[in-house]
């Protein structure tokens, strides 16, 4: 009984911690022991698994939004510099 309660408390602690550190995990900015802690929790927690996967897709989508300027703005900057300095 006590063991089960302690396990539940630990699960909830890991649940909150995982929710707060998913971005660090996706960015590869967790220490190895923290990474293992998150992965172990996600393995057992379907809610965090769904959240992590959808966050990963969101961030991947954001990274793909980068686009080159249609044309360089450097010439207009240089024109203005020459006029005003």
């Amino acid at each position: 009984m006590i063991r089960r309660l302690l396990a539940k408390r630990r699960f909830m602690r890991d649940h909150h911690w995982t929710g707060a550190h998913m971005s660090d995990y996706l960015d590869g900015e967790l220490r190895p022991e923290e990474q293992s802690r998150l992965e172990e929790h996600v393995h057992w927690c379907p809610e965090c698994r769904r959240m992590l996967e959808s966050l990963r897709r969101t961030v991947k989508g954001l990274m793909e939004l980068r686009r080159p300027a249609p044309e360089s703005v450097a010439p207009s900057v240089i024109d203005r510099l020459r006029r005003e300095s």
Partner: protein
Amino acid sequence: MDLAAGSALPLLPTWHPVANGDPRPHVRTPAGRAVTAGTDAEAHLVRTAQSGDRDAFEQLVRLHADRLYAVVIRVVGDRHEAEEVVQETFLRAWRSLGRFEGRSQFFTWLYRIGVNEAKRTYERRGARPASTPLEEAPGQAADERHTPHARAEAQDLRQALEAAIMELPMDYRMPLVLRDIEGLSTTQAAAVMDLGEAAFKSRLHRARLAVRAAVEELVTQEHDA
């Protein structure tokens, strides 16, 4: 879920030096020498410009103007205003170049000026709509490996993400733009925003969660199917 796919490979932007060669911005000097952002050659250009050499400063403009424009346009949401902000940024940088002490990277110093200038422009305009708003994101080159359905889904996601970003308050939009879209490191992006790394990461995470919530249907439907 394939955890290994998410954990073994941190999500790096496609232009990131580790992910895709080293496509950092670069220019060629009139003498034909290549200068890449963040290198000793760039530091030399900065020192030369600090001695009053405008040609050297113009090389720095060619090196950084377009990437700065990409950041600024996501702050002000208007193409013409973004171009004016970039011009103003370089004018200010030229006039205060003597105060740049080289303790940070040049582009970090420059972006900080640019981001502050962009915020001032955005706040001045208030609720007035942009006169030359961002055009819709052009569809990326069709990837023949993907089905038309997958390509349409990707386009839907891009549009939903663009809309969700513009809904974010500025303090949360900036971390997302600098880190996820423009691919700066956490350290660089935090320095541009003049924040400690912990505070920056906290804002970035909240911003990502807000955007995820806004596009939830599009990023979970395939997974749940």
